[in-house]
């Protein structure tokens, strides 16, 4: 069982594992691996705490439904699974500023958090606009050979590669 305490596995072992995992989500739960809609549900549920039941009537929330569902629990599971893996290998650490960011822009946690917030807004907005994220489109959709998912996944990387180069090469 020593492999469980290793910090890193080969990316191919991880990829094959995720591929096989997706067989079982299709077989048992009749659902593809996906994450981003759960964040929209959470956002709606928080809004509902403040504004009450009328939030349910917003067309987008009527479409996705504001409830804890299979995918919401999947996302909670991802947090737990990652925590278990990191604790087993000793890779867990509290960290405000990732090292690559620190090298380019310094260790100020406020700057990093503000930039992460702005990036998060784009991710949340873009994932809803495109109808999925790196898991729903990028893995589950592409493996089903869905046209919408291949277009989305390619655009995720075009936008991401261009922006990362602007941030780290032009600014950093």
């Amino acid at each position, binding site marked *: 069982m020593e492999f469980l305490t290793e910090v890193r596995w080969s990316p191919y072992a991880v990829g094959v594992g995720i591929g096989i995992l997706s067989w079982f989500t299709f077989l048992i739960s009749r659902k593809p691996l996906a994450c981003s809609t759960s964040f929209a549900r959470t956002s709606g549920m928080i809004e509902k705490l403040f504004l009450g039941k009328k939030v349910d009537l917003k067309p987008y929330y009527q479409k996705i439904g504001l409830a804890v569902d299979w995918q919401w629990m999947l996302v909670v599971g991802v947090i737990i699974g990652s925590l278990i893996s990191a604790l087993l290998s000793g890779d867990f650490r509290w960290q405000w500023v990732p090292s690559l960011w620190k090298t380019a822009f310094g260790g100020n946690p406020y700057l990093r958090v503000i930039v992460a917030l702005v990036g998060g807004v784009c991710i949340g907005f873009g994932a809803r606009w495109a109808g999925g994220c790196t898991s729903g489109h990028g893995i589950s959709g592409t493996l089903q050979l*869905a046209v919408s998912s291949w277009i989305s996944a390619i655009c995720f990387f075009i936008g991401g590669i261009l922006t990362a180069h602007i941030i780290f090469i032009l600014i950093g």
Partner: protein
Amino acid sequence: MQTSVRKKEISPLLWGLAFGIVFGFLLQKGGATSYDVIIGQLLLTDFTVLKIMLSAVLVGMMGIYAMKALGWVELYPKSGSAGKNIIGGLIFGVGFAVLGYCPGTIAGAIGNGALDAVVGGLAGILIGSGLFAALYPRLRQGILKKGDFGDLTFPRLFKVNDWVIVIPAATLIFIMLYWLERAGL
């Protein structure tokens, strides 16, 4: 009666949690919950993320299409349009590079102890999702419908047997992975 109804409601949630734990465990072991690894991919210096995704798609696709042929599973392709997937995809991509996590890996990053992911990224994703929900009534009949093609898959687009696409796609992915290794990336 009541217990069986409750069991029916709870069991899918427990499966979701269990699958999520495995997914998160794998993402962390692969390094995909790390900002440095994701940004390394977008800067084209570290190809871990692409290797994980392509091998997952290769194995997942072969298995899912084999099970589909056996009648064990059905597909759930998302419907799309040019306005939806190109524009949404590019906005997502910008956020991907600025945040350094995506919705799945940010959950993993939180489990890994990344505080910028909790305080900044998670809050941002919730705000961005809410913003979209607010604008949705104005977008849904306009830009999101531009160039609509429905829930099309490549085998249906080309009107061919599934395996006419699956086999070449699998071969192409395999060649790409082989080429990445050969190039020392």
